[in-house]
């Protein structure tokens, strides 16, 4: 077993993909959650359901949708390739898109709950003290909702790390380029390389436990309301 090639490369790739996916899913998830938690508009419940959809759809369905949208002949993918010469299919960036989609609902749901838990009175107090909406959000709403949002982002990261189906369809199984841990495990088991599979499984489990414990410590309350 060649340690760097078989373990380190998929591990680093997985962390890179999951990291970017968590970042994108967090920004989008918090933004969408803020609109849903603070604004009242018609069709709100439909949008809420649509945001949660990736949580319940089979990954293969998501993967298919993604191919339709960002594939070489896809709605967005064809334009991207013609205009900028960028292809997302079979690249690690494609894997980031797939992971972002599956991680999104976890961050979004947690953020909606966290933002709804922030008492309006604190925001009103900030407004009366002369603050614009952006400052109110950044200095009052976000810090007060931070713990719940971080909890959602952690789950999103763990989900992105384990992402398999949609990633396989969009990014494929290219060792060193798009082969993430979960795909490498599948590949190793299929090829009968049990020792590699064992090692990868243990590494994945340890990394996930380390992340959960570490973020659990970060989440200790600093103050009480």
């Amino acid at each position, binding site marked *: 077993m060649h340690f760097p090639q078989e373990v380190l490369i998929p591990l680093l790739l997985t962390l890179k993909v999951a990291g970017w996916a968590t970042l994108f899913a967090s920004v989008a998830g918090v933004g969408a959650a803020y609109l849903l938690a603070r604004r009242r508009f018609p069709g709100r419940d439909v949008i809420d359901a649509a945001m949660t959809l990736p949580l319940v759809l089979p990954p293969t369905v998501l993967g298919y949708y993604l191919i339709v949208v960002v594939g070489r002949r896809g709605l967005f993918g064809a334009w991207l390739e013609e205009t900028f010469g960028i292809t997302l299919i079979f690249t690690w960036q494609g894997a980031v898109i797939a992971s972002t989609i599956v991680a999104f609902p976890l961050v979004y749901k947690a953020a909606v709950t966290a933002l709804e838990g922030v008492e309006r009175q*604190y925001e009103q107090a900030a*407004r*009366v*003290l002369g603050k614009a909406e952006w400052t109110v959000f950044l200095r*009052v709403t976000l810090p*007060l909702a931070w713990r719940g949002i971080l909890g959602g982002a952690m789950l999103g990261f763990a989900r992105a790390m384990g992402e398999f189906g949609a990633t396989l369809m969009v990014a494929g199984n290219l060792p060193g380029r798009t082969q993430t841990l979960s795909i490498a495990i599948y590949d190793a088991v299929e090829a009968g390389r049990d020792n590699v599979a064992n090692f990868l499984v243990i590494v994945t489990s340890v990394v996930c436990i380390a992340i959960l414990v570490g973020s659990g410590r970060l989440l200790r309350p600093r103050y*009480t309301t």
Partner: protein
Amino acid sequence: MRIEVEIRKTLRADGREFHLDVAFTCEDDISVVFGPSGSGKSVTLKALAGLERPDGGRIAVDGRVLFDSRNGINLAARERGVGYLFQDYALFPHLTVEQNVSFALLHWWQRRPTADMRRRVTDLLEIFELTGLERSYPAQLSGGQRQRVALARALIQKPAILLLDEPFAALDPLLRIRMRQELLNTQWLFKVPMLVITHDPQDVAALAETVIVLRKGRVDRALDLKGAPYRDPLGAPVRGAIRKLLLETYGEGVSGEGTEAMPGAN
């Protein structure tokens, strides 16, 4: 300082409708809007601060129009230059006393006050006897200290007027008497006109120069109490009588705790 209020608003909740239609003008250092719960005083105060939008009417403070439905004027809460003391103070739980008080001075990218701001905060904290609590969080403070922090936070911007929403409701009776006195001192020291809303007749007796009584969304009466100054012994019986009158006339939904530990009030 002249506060002109004339607002209309229809509120709906649980299939019931509530019509608010109030108009009053006050020019005193401390005006009190008194009313039993559900009389519309809270909505009136929020409308003044820009936290609630009336259906129609006009609000002006010292000639500066904050809201005028006919001319399409509706300044955002942040542009109104009013101070607001929330009933349970709404101190930011994630910020220290110092950060709470300097909040109005900070830009969005600033987490902590600059040396210059810190001096202003320190001076203010000294006036409110909060020195030494700079690094404490609101949860670690007593009720009286919380109110002082909230007052300091509201006054650091030198607002044109300070609006107070049931300022003593969150305090225990003995502390209430002391904090009323402190509020009078604060008014005297900062010369900031105050508009207090309350359902406690004792607040009217202890603070008001003018009292505007609301009932069922309308102004029921307005009384001038300047002839009975609080510090003047001759004022006390008149104020006691006013308190009794309010208690008897608006008994339902009015704080009965007014009878607490207030010697000679009856």
